[in-house]
């Protein structure tokens, strides 16, 4: 390698700078006397000067040293100045370098060609000290700016990559949580002999806050509930999962001895007060006595229970009541009714009926009720599928803005009119 760096000879530098901040200039010039002269003049100005006697060597040194400025002679054998500039611009490592092309004469045509082929500025070989200083300073200023931009660009890129990675991790975590919550929902199919169960659940986000349960409490009783957490997002979903855990059959049985709805609500009301932000639950609880078909139920502000009988019009099973946490001393009252074979009980979240049409009109509970009534002859799961399909048709969109859940149970034992499995 034939380049040699001229060491500062101890002459007074015009710029008093800390060694670490001295700019590096690479001089590419084949003629030795010119090279020596220019190198000396630049060194005198306080810069660290590297020399290369031809373009090929110049590129090597540039890649290794990453100089702040490259001063290049126009006319050189093998690789002339403009060709060198083109090579620099093609090199991903060097392409944003500051290139000063040295000319013997200032010809406009030459300057135009130099610019097109990649030079940033020009310097006459016979330039005065002032002119050299001015050109070099301008070039170094630009070089510094370009480097700052590149660093910021790089930092932005790594920040973006980091963000994307974290986002992917969060999505994965949410998905894991969602899968777990889904696993707590009742399995499809019959929970006990004589009862058919079907449900469909479309959380608006990965994690949903409207949850439900259907479970055998003991050999004679089936427990059911549907809950809704106020608010949206992960926080609401987490609170729901927490209440859901409380409402597990084994837990309630151990705590209260039965799944008596008014007792369950009383207890839940005590244990789940308003949060510091005013968050709360609405909850509907039912207990079905399997041998007799007697349904006991109570609600804390949740209006989503509908009874559909073969022979009578469907009816809402709800009364005006406080959501959990509104009144810490609230008492809840059971209602009772007898279910018969082929009767269907639907529990559902407001997300299935509070869907707006494109013009903003809500589908509403009445239309939902209409679908339940219309589908009496079809299977339970087909009826539920029809609810979702009609709701989607109404809003003319596939995705539900709020968690949409519909759970249906049907009494399947014995001839119609009796229920004694």
């Amino acid at each position, binding site marked *: 390698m034939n380049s040699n760096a001229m060491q500062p000879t101890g002459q007074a530098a015009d710029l008093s700078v800390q060694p670490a901040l001295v700019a590096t200039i690479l001089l590419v010039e084949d003629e030795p006397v010119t090279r020596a002269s220019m190198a000396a003049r630049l060194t005198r100005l306080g810069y660290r000067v590297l020399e290369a006697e031809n373009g090929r060597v110049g590129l090597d040194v540039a890649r290794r040293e990453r100089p702040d400025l490259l001063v290049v002679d126009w006319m050189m054998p093998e690789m002339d100045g403009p060709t060198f500039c083109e090579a620099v611009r093609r090199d991903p490592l060097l392409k944003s370098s500051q290139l000063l092309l040295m000319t013997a004469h200032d010809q406009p045509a030459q300057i135009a060609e130099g610019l097109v082929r990649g030079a940033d500025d020009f310097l006459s070989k016979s330039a005065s000290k002032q002119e050299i200083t001015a050109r070099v300073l301008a070039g170094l200023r630009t070089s510094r700016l370009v480097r700052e931009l590149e660093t910021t660009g790089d930092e932005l890129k790594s920040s973006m990559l980091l963000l994307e990675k974290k986002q992917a991790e969060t999505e994965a975590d949410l998905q894991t949580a969602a899968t777990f919550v889904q696993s707590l929902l009742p399995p499809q199919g019959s929970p006990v002999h004589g009862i058919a169960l079907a449900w469909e659940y479309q959380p608006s986000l990965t994690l949903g806050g409207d949850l439900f349960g259907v479970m055998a409490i003991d050999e004679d009783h089936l427990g059911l509930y549907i809950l809704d957490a*106020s*608010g949206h997002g992960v926080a609401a979903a987490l609170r729901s999962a927490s209440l859901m855990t409380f409402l597990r059959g084994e837990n309630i049985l151990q705590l209260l001895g039965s799944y008596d709805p008014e007792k369950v609500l009383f207890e839940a009301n005590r244990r789940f007060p308003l949060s510091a932000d005013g968050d709360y639950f609405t909850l509907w609880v039912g207990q079905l006595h399997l041998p007799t078909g007697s349904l006991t139920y109570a609600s804390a502000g949740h209006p989503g229970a509908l009874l559909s009988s073969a022979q009578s019009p469907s009816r809402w099973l709800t009364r005006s*009541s*406080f959501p959990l946490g*509104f009144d810490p001393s609230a008492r809840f009252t059971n209602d009772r009714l007898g279910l018969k074979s082929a009767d269907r009980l639907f529990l559902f979240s407001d997300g299935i009926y509070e869907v707006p049409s494109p013009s903003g009109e809500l589908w509403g509970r009445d239309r939902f009720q209409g679908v339940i009534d219309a589908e009496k002859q079809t299977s339970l799961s087909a009826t539920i599928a029809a609810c979702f399909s009609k709701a989607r048709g109404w809003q003319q969109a596939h995705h539900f803005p709020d968690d949409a859940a519909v759970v249906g149970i049907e009494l399947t034992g014995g001839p119609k009119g009796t229920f004694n499995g």
Partner: protein
Amino acid sequence: MQIKERTATQGIILDVEGDLTYANQGVFKAAVEKAKQTGCRHLIVNLEQVRFVDSAGLGLLVLVSQSFKQLQAQVSILKPQSYVREIMSLANIPKLIPIFEREEDALMARAA
């Protein structure tokens, strides 16, 4: 959402304008806190200019009512629009927080 505070002889009236929702809870909470600091015995929330209250908004009203009760103070609601009134009925709010149609009635109620 904007809230203006008015002082009456028997309490403070918050004139709420906009939607009482999750997004605006900060503004509402701040206004309530400010009224509380004055040792107000009766806070009247005027919902005449409120078109919409979501579940978070309901929860906030109840929360405020509960916290005022703890201080032996009172919260009332004034002139809810019909849609808002319906939402509040479904959650049984009237049993918890008195609702008035006229400001004089609300102010009188506390005095009683």
